[in-house]
């Protein structure tokens, strides 16, 4: 195996440990603050995946939106209202073992089914030259995907206004 492919596999394995390990940390950690920090680790692993998949722009978006905005927002919410942490109470409900069973079963079913499908993978020539330039992405967003793009900006504006109204202090 050539050395660059070996490096790719190595990076993939490291990122898998980060993503899945961080994900497990999110769901089993007893301290909610630690859960949020594990979430950052897991989302960071996904950045490595995007880089490996030649989606550099998505990697930057993931870093800025998920880690820079969503995780920090969750950490702010936890730190500003300590009661949210429920530190001296159980963090999982009594049906947790059913949930674990469902999760493991779904994973086994998915792993078996996905392994049996013959995916129509593109030919080697197309795989070697992906259409991944940021300029093309920008043209696509303002060309064929202009309407979904506008809809998502309206959605974000609505979410912004809604969040302000919902979280406003109702006392005054």
């Amino acid at each position: 195996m050539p050395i660059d492919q070996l490096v790719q596999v190595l990076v993939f394995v490291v990122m898998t440990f980060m993503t899945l390990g961080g994900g497990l940390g999110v769901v089993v950690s007893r301290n909610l603050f630690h859960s949020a920090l594990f979430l950052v680790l897991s989302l960071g692993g996904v950045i490595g995946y995007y880089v490996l998949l030649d989606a550099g722009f998505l990697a930057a978006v993931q870093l800025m939106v998920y880690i820079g905005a969503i995780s920090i927002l969750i950490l702010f919410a936890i730190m500003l209202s300590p009661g949210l942490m429920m530190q001296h109470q159980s963090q999982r409900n009594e049906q947790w073992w059913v949930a674990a069973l469902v999760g493991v079963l779904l994973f086994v079913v998915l792993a078996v089914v996905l392994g049996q499908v013959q995916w129509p993978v593109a030919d080697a020539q197309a795989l070697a030259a992906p259409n991944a330039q940021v300029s093309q992405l920008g043209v696509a967003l303002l060309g064929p995907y202009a309407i979904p793009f506008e809809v998502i900006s309206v959605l974000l504006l609505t979410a912004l206004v809604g969040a302000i109204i919902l979280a406003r202090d109702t006392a005054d």
Partner: protein
Amino acid sequence: MAIPLYWWLAVAAGLFCIGLYGVLSRRNAIAVLMGIELMLNAVNINLVAFWRYITPQALTGQVFAMFVIGIAAAEATTGLAIIISAYRRRDTVIVEKLNTMRW
């Protein structure tokens, strides 16, 4: 491509199932929200992997992943606002106790 498509799909399925376990088993509403974030990320890995391996000449996969990220941002902000508002009124974020709308 050194890594077969199946590896990506398996990792994404694993992350999705971990997130599903978090959503179903946690009592804290914020932890449930974090589980949903994990599931959305698993979907995004799938979208980008399918784009890279099956339609590398089109941009649909990347554009879709960006829309999913945008919707996740909207979902996280409104979700957290609802949780904080509920915590102010009911003094709890345990999802089993926030059951006013349960029939």
